[in-house]
C-alpha cells in the first residue's frame, strides 16, 4: 500500500479541477447561508428592536405588573410600590416611568397626517437615563408642552428639527431636542417628556400609577439579593425583574405571542431547513462528480479511511468557500435592512458562529454520507 505523499492537497486539487463548477457550488452555498442569515435576521428585527430602549435606561432592577409581558400590555403598577421599594436596604432610587402609545396621535408637521407615537414620561429631575445625549437634553423638558423627538423615527412622522412645533393629541407640542432611540415593530417613533406634561396630554392617566418602576441600587449592593428583599417586601401586584429577565420577557412576547414573531419564526425554520438541505445536496453532488478520480486513488492503493478523509476535507473546503462570502452577504443584508426599516438586527458573533457551524456541519455530514456511497465505487468501473 502506498502512503499518500503528505504535501499533495488532494481534496483541494479535486475541487480546483473544475473551477467554474467550484464557483457555482460555492456561490450556491453562499446563497443558502445568506438565506439563513436573513430569515434569522427578520426574526431578530422583530424581537431585538423592542429592546434598545432598555439600553438607554439606567436600571439595576425593574418593577412591573405581573400582568405585563411587554410594553404592548397596558398594565400599570401603583406608584406607592416605588415608595415601599425605596425603604428596602440597598435601593438607592425607585423611579416611575409613564408610557402611552395608543392614544398619542402625533401630527406630521408637513403632511398634517396623524399617527400614534410612543410617549415615555418621567420626572425630569430623576437620573433615569444612561445615555449622555439624552441626559443633557432632558433638562430642557421642564417647560410646558415640550418634548424630545427620536430622530430615528419613521419618515412618515415628518421632518422634525429642534424647535419644530406640531400637535400631539391635537394639543400644541414643541420639540426642544433630538435623541437617538430607534423604532421597533410596533412603535414608529418616540417622544420623551416630563411627567407634568404627560398628564397634561393624557389627563385620563392616573398619576399614582406608572407603567414601570426603575430601581437603582446603592454602590456595591448585589442585584440578586436586593431583588429577593424587594420580592419579600412588596405585595403580589408587582413583579421584580432583573434587566436581563425584563428584556427576555419582552423578547419572548414578540417571538411567541405576536403574529409577526410567529410568521418570521416559521421563516427561520423553513430558511434553515432549505439552507442546510442545499449545503448537503451540493457537497453530495460534488463528491459524486469526483467519483472517478477517487476510484483511481483507490486503485492506486489509498485506503478507504484515507479517501474518507479526503472527502471530508473536500466538503469542509467547499463549505468554507461558500460560508465566507455567505457571512459577508448576510452582513450586507443586515445593514441594508436596518437602513431600510429602522429595525435593529444584531449581527452577533454568537449568531454568526451558530449558523456557520450549522452550515459547515451539514457540509461535513454530507461529505461523510457521500463517502459511504464511495464504497460502491469499483476501481474496475474505470475501465469501462
Amino acid at each position, binding site marked *: 500500500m502506498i502512503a499518500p505523499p503528505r504535501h499533495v492537497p488532494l481534496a483541494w486539487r479535486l475541487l480546483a479541477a473544475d473551477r*467554474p*463548477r467550484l464557483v*457555482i*457550488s460555492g*456561490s*450556491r452555498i453562499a*446563497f*443558502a447561508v*445568506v*438565506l439563513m442569515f*436573513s*430569515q434569522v435576521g*427578520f426574526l431578530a*428585527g422583530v424581537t431585538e428592536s423592542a429592546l434598545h430602549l432598555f439600553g438607554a435606561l439606567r436600571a439595576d432592577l425593574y418593577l412591573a405588573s405581573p400582568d405585563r409581558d411587554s410594553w404592548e400590555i*397596558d398594565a400599570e403598577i401603583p406608584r406607592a410600590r416605588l415608595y415601599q421599594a425605596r425603604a428596602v436596604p440597598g435601593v438607592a432610587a425607585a423611579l416611575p416611568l409613564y408610557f402611552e402609545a395608543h*392614544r398619542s396621535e402625533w401630527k406630521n408637521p408637513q403632511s398634517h397626517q396623524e399617527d400614534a407615537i410612543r410617549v415615555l414620561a418621567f420626572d425630569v429631575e430623576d437620573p433615569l437615563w444612561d445615555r449622555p445625549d439624552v441626559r443633557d437634553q432632558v433638562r430642557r423638558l421642564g417647560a410646558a408642552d415640550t418634548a424630545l423627538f427620536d430622530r430615528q423615527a*419613521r419618515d*412618515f412622522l415628518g421632518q422634525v428639527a429642534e424647535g419644530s412645533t406640531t400637535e400631539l393629541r391635537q394639543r400644541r407640542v414643541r420639540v426642544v431636542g433630538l435623541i437617538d432611540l430607534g*423604532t421597533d*415593530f*410596533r412603535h*414608529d417613533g418616540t417622544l420623551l417628556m416630563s411627567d407634568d406634561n404627560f398628564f397634561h396630554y*393624557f*389627563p*385620563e*392617566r392616573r398619576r399614582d400609577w406608572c407603567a414601570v418602576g426603575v430601581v437603582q441600587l446603592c454602590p456595591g449592593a448585589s442585584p440578586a439579593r436586593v431583588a429577593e428583599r424587594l420580592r419579600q417586601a412588596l405585595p403580589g401586584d408587582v413583579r421584580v425583574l432583573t434587566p436581563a429577565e425584563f428584556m427576555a420577557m419582552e423578547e419572548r412576547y414578540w417571538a411567541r*405571542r*405576536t*403574529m*409577526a414573531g*410567529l*410568521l*418570521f419564526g*416559521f*421563516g427561520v425554520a*423553513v430558511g434553515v431547513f*432549505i439552507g442546510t438541505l*442545499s449545503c448537503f445536496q*451540493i457537497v453530495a*453532488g460534488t463528491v459524486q*462528480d469526483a467519483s472517478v478520480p477517487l476510484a483511481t486513488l483507490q486503485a492506486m492503493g489509498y485506503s478507504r479511511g484515507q479517501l474518507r478523509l479526503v472527502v471530508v476535507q473536500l466538503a469542509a473546503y467547499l463549505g468554507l468557500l461558500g460560508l465566507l462570502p455567505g457571512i459577508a452577504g448576510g452582513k450586507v*443584508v443586515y445593514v441594508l*435592512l436596518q437602513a*431600510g*426599516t*429602522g*429595525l435593529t438586527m444584531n449581527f452577533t458573533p454568537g449568531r454568526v458562529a451558530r449558523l456557520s457551524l450549522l452550515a459547515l456541519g451539514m457540509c461535513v455530514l454530507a461529505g461523510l454520507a457521500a463517502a459511504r456511497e464511495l464504497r460502491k465505487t469499483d476501481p474496475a468501473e474505470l475501465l469501462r
Partner: protein
Amino acid sequence: MLIDVHSKGETGPTAVGLVTEIHGRRVTAVGECRIGPGALGSGLVVVGPHTFLKLAPGAVRDRIQLGLIRLRPGLDPAAAAARLRGQLGADVRVLTRAEVEEIDQGNFLERRPVGILFRIGVALSFLVGSVTLYHILAVETSNRRGEYATLLALGHTRRALVGVVVQMGLLYVSLSFLPALLLATGLLQLVGRVARAPALLEVRHVLLVGGLCVVMCATASVLAMRKLRAANPAELFG
C-alpha cells in the same frame, strides 16, 4: 361584549359567559363573533358605545374613528363619495370600501417594516431558487457535453440546443411546481393554525410564484447556455 372566537390562544378561553377584565373593568362575554386577529393585534372584542366609553379612558363620545355609510340600492359609490367630499369639511376623508382596503394594505406593506421584510424575503427566495436551478442546469449541460457535441456534429444548430436547455429548465420547474404547491399549502395551513393568521394562498399568489418560476427558469437557462458554447464536436475525440 361579543368575543371573537378566532382570537389567538394566549388571549385565553373565548366562551360565552366568560367574565374577565379589560383595563381593570369587569366585562362579560354575552356572545361570539368570528373575525380573526391582525398581524399585530392578537384578539378582539366587540362592545357597545356605553361600554366602550367606560373601558377606554380618554375616549370622547363626540369623536369617532370611522363613520360607516350605507347607500341606497343602485347608487354608484364613487359618485356618492364625490358628492360627500363636496359637502363635508377638510377634517374628514371620504373613502370607498376599496380605497379603505387599499390604504390599510399600503400602510402595512409600504410604511411598516413587516411589508419590507416579507418582500425582501420573496426576493431572496427567488435568488436562491434561480441559483439552484442554474446549478442543476449547468451540471446537467456540462455532464452531457458529449451528447450536445454529437447533436451539433449531426447538424443541429446551437439555437436548437439552447431550446433543449430551456425546455429542460421548464420541465424541472413544472415537475416540481405541483409538489411544491402542495407542500406550501400544507405549511401555510400549519402557520394559519398556529398563528391564527388568515395566511391564504390565493390564486393570484400561485400565479405570481408561477410567473417568478418562469422568469427564474429563463434566467437560469440563459446562463447555463453559456456552458453550451464550450460544446465542441472535436471534443468527442478528445
